[in-house]
């Protein structure tokens, strides 16, 4: 996107951008000061609601509205920052934390002030080692500068930030799974209601916000809701981080307005710079794998919160695209994704625990040359019986598991059938003997 001026990534590439002095010299913490000294919590909520900041973690729920679900007469609020980022192929939170940790801390202070939280837990996945050390150092610097702790910047607002490290579980990115994990339990998502805003961490009213959502807050406070609304299409305002990975020339995390298409993200010089070796695109998972798949001829999809539904996808998700090139066997993709969900299902709901496992077994069979055409119908049937919140499942994981599997089966059925027809019938028994 020519002439787009990065906001969330504006400090990337600046020398020592992680240090508090450099962050402050570039205008950092002025928004926190403005919010604390010139605005009431309700003013901040109004501004964020007006900006229609939709949650960047995957669901796209408006952050300002989420805050208003907190009971008015609450005695305490707890804030959880979701930095669990485990959805393949998503890594934009990682980039935000390692390149500009103070931006996240400033956003956390603003969100904390707005929700009147005195404690914020940043839940980091354990694999983020460098990011943990970087962020902890930034938190220490912020304490030393009087930006955290008692009476921040001389105001009567106090906030403690604690980093909490996970231990390897995708489902802890689900907000109630994350809460359980902080409480020292298995990361099993809770049945809702009660929603965390009413009864969350330690049974207190709790807000869970994503890293990228919070990183937007300082800029909304500084430049106002109208500026935010001027970026991107209606309903999908504001700067957005896009991730692109797979066999493209320049994989990475890029910032832009949500007017770009999937094709631009892959091909444009500003972003992915085209496919490696100019191999055509076979498939793209544009919003993290859980959202579903696009065929190579569906790349006109806009990377906003609404257009993905027109292509049979669950939503925009994390706006992290992984590209599959035309040389890749689609059976490999099917098996890889089915395995991920089978291993990451938390096991509470029968249809998810059993369904993801069966989909993995069937996909393994197909990949190894022992598939049957009926297996494709079977996959669709299993997928069809697993998902669709609300009601059937405790969390959204089964939906996230079925969308990519069903999408691949439906959109690439011709290729799968052809590959199954071309199997060597003499080998089927040997394959099944190994797999079973």
């Amino acid at each position, binding site marked *: 996107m020519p002439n787009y001026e990065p906001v969330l990534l504006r400090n990337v590439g600046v020398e020592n951008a992680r240090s508090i002095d450099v962050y402050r010299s570039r205008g950092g913490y002025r928004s926190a000061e403005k919010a604390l000294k010139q605005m009431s919590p309700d003013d901040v909520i109004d501004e964020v609601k007006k900006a229609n900041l939709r949650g960047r973690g995957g669901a796209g729920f408006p952050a300002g509205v989420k805050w208003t679900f907190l009971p008015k007469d609450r005695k305490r609020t707890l804030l959880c920052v979701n930095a669990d980022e485990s*959805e393949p192929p998503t890594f934009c939170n990682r980039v935000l934390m390692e390149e500009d940790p103070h931006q996240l801390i400033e956003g956390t202070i603003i969100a904390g002030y707005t929700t009147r939280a005195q404690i914020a837990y940043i839940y980091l996945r354990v694999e983020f080692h460098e990011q943990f050390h970087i962020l902890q150092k930034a938190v220490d610097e912020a304490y030393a500068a009087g930006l955290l702790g008692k009476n921040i910047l001389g105001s009567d607002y106090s906030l403690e930030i604690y980093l909490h490290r996970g231990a390897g579980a995708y489902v802890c990115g689900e907000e109630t799974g994350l809460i359980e994990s902080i409480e020292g339990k298995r990361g099993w998502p809770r049945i809702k209601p009660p929603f965390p805003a009413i009864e969350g961490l330690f049974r207190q009213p709790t807000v869970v916000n994503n890293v990228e959502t919070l990183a937007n807050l300082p800029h909304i406070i500084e430049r106002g809701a109208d500026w935010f609304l001027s970026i991107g299409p209606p309903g999908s305002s504001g700067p957005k981080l896009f991730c692109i990975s797979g066999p493209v020339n320049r994989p990475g995390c890029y910032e832009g307005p949500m007017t770009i298409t999937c094709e631009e993200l892959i091909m444009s010089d500003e972003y992915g710079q085209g496919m490696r070796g100019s191999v055509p695109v076979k498939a793209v998972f544009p919003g993290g794998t859980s959202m579903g798949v696009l065929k190579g001829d569906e790349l006109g999809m806009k990377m906003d919160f609404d257009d993905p539904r027109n292509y049979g996808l669950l939503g925009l998700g994390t706006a992290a695209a992984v590209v599959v090139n035309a040389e890749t066997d689609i059976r490999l993709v099917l098996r890889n994704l089915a395995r991920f969900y089978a291993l990451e299902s938390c*096991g509470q709901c029968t249809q998810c625990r059993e369904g993801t496992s069966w989909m993995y077994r069937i996909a393994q069979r197909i990949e190894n040359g022992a598939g049957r055409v009926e297996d494709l119908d079977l996959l669709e049937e299993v997928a069809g019986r697993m998902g669709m919140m609300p009601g059937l499942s405790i969390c959204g994981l089964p939906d996230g598991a079925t969308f990519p599997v069903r999408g691949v089966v439906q959109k690439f059925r011709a290729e799968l059938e052809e590959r199954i027809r071309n199997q060597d019938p003499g080998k089927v028994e040997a394959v099944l003997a190994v797999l079973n």
Partner: protein
Amino acid sequence: MSWQTIDRNVSPYAAGSEPVLSEGVREKIRSFFPRYDTKRAVLLPALHMVQDALGHVPYKAMAEIAEVLEIHPSDVLDTLTFYTHFWTHPKGEKVVMACRSISCELTGGREVLDAIKSHLGIGEHETTADGKYSLVTEECLAGCDHGPCMLINEKLHKCVKAADVPKLLDDAKNDRIEVPRSDLFDAPERSNSNQPS
């Protein structure tokens, strides 16, 4: 991860012997109490510290953690076995975590995993005879832009090529990160002796 157990050998319960947790570890665990409403919430930090001190979390350590946190040992076991990053049996000095997510697999992750296996002479979830290396597989390391990647203890290795694997694994400093470390989740013994890396 979750209900599917990929790697759960356990060391026998060493009954009657000396405590496995030093007073330093216990003290550090207690220092986390003010952060949370409940003592149980300190369980994940405690497991990180204990695993850092002992290399894994044996049954006896679980019982001792339970004592410090005033919960039942089975609560510790219940939580621990849900998470893939806590080991219940000894691992090698360095744990190699190879990513096999979709982005890494599409950019050559399988070849890298095969190269690791053949260089170390072990399979997934195994440890070399000299106790130096263990190999585990990971579902996603959030390093998709640098696929294929692998983690050696704390260090994320990016854009790994199968041909470079032997050199990477033979490098003594392959698990050291370059940013300043925080010792918040480390065993206290280590934070005294291992700074700076």
